[in-house]
């Protein structure tokens, strides 16, 4: 109920947009959108309303922040060998899949 769900905008008219949530398409209202929304944007939907247009560059920022946290912490206090090992693996391009895509719950 209180779940925001990100989706890809596939169609826009004046008041609403058609948004694809992992294959489920739903028309959502744009009354609350903080910025103009265009086809190809990712938006956060909540109870049938867009509450945020997600800038594409922000996704990468968030991921970088995680890696920064791990890095900062490996240099502090007792050396965390596991974190260092894992970080090296990430940098070597090892990206395991968690299996199962998002369930597209509206």
């Amino acid at each position, binding site marked *: *109920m*209180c*779940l*925001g769900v*990100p989706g890809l905008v596939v169609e826009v008219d004046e008041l609403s947009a058609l948004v694809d949530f992992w294959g489920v398409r739903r028309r959502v*209202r744009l*009354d*609350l*959108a*903080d910025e103009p929304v265009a086809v190809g944007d*990712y938006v*956060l939907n*909540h*109870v*049938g*309303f867009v*509450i*945020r247009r*997600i*800038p*594409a560059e*922000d*996704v990468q*920022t*968030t*991921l970088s*922040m*995680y*890696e920064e*946290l*791990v890095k900062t*912490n*490996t240099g502090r*206090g*007792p050396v*965390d060998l*596991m*974190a260092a090992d*894992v*970080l090296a*693996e*990430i940098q070597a391009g*090892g*990206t*395991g*899949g*968690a299996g199962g*895509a*998002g369930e597209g719950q*509206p």
Partner: protein
Amino acid sequence: MTPLEFRDPLRAKALSATLARVVSEIGRSPVAVMHVCGSHEQAIARFGLRSAFPRGLDVIMGPGCPVCVTDQPEIDEAVALARQGVRVTTYGDMLRVPGTAGSLADAQAAGARLDVVYSVAQAVELARETDEEVVFFASVFETTAVATAAVIVAGVPANFSVLSAHKYIPPVMEIVAEMPGTRVDGFLAAGHAATITGWRVFEPFVARHHLPVVVAGFEPLDILAALVKLTEMIRDGIAEVVNLFPRCVTPDGNRRALDLLWQVFQPIGGRWRGIAHVPNGNLRLRDEWASVDARRRFAIDVASLWNGAPSTLVRQCICGNIMSGIASPHDCALFGNACVPDAQVGACMVSSEGTCRIWHEYGGIPELGEPSCRFCQ
């Protein structure tokens, strides 16, 4: 964007190891942090994150389930309206929440007209298609209240009105922080609510209580990273607001949505079920919108529902203590016995976002770390 980027098991392991070390550096046990969001609890339970938390860290679910904190008199108002023959629409989770004398589902079984909607916009559409009075029983926090505000400002048909049980999160954090016996060292704030309010809304709270707040998203990595940041601040004695959900949360939030919210609603004091009276915790329609306020349009006869004391089972329910972080579902004699998803006693078992329901469904703290192979021991 693919959600899998935020579920990468390698990154999760690294963050989990870091979290264990930071918690051990705090040097006391347990360290307790509280989140105030059903979506956080769902992610924690569904992905088995509690098994990745160090033993010295308690991650408590506070009053973050909107259905659970809706007070009985509010449910009673909706039930009374439905029994009076008014067509009531609401979100699906509200249907089975017990009021003083039964739930909306009970009223429906007794013949009341009730429509479950996914969005308040559907309730407005329904009103346009009929001449009957249609009331939208509006629950949940500011994230959802902005949608109610949007349809009201956009214009609703004359036969549509709103019974508001909307609640506003920031004031209840103050209550939990001030509660006698509270043992909360810091808060995780919900990314979606903060998408609307912005993260600066927590600054006065942090200054008053000297407790750190981290705004977190809902993927496993979001939550682990936020816990690392939060425990670091606890270790270092720092009380600040840190935003770890920048892909959605800005300092000042969604101005357009906030303008609509405060144009339509005003915060007033009121009870949250099982918690306390929360100053400014309830959102009610402003006088300018009296014409769409169901409380002013109808004479709602709740007193007729109040004959008879609550059942013995209800009196044993400890939902309030669970939502305040003082107890966990396992402390409740009813949990898993008299109170199960098919036959709920308390609101925490009703909602898919309630602590008891989530723990019943996924288990609270799965024991995944113990080796079970006898050759390895």
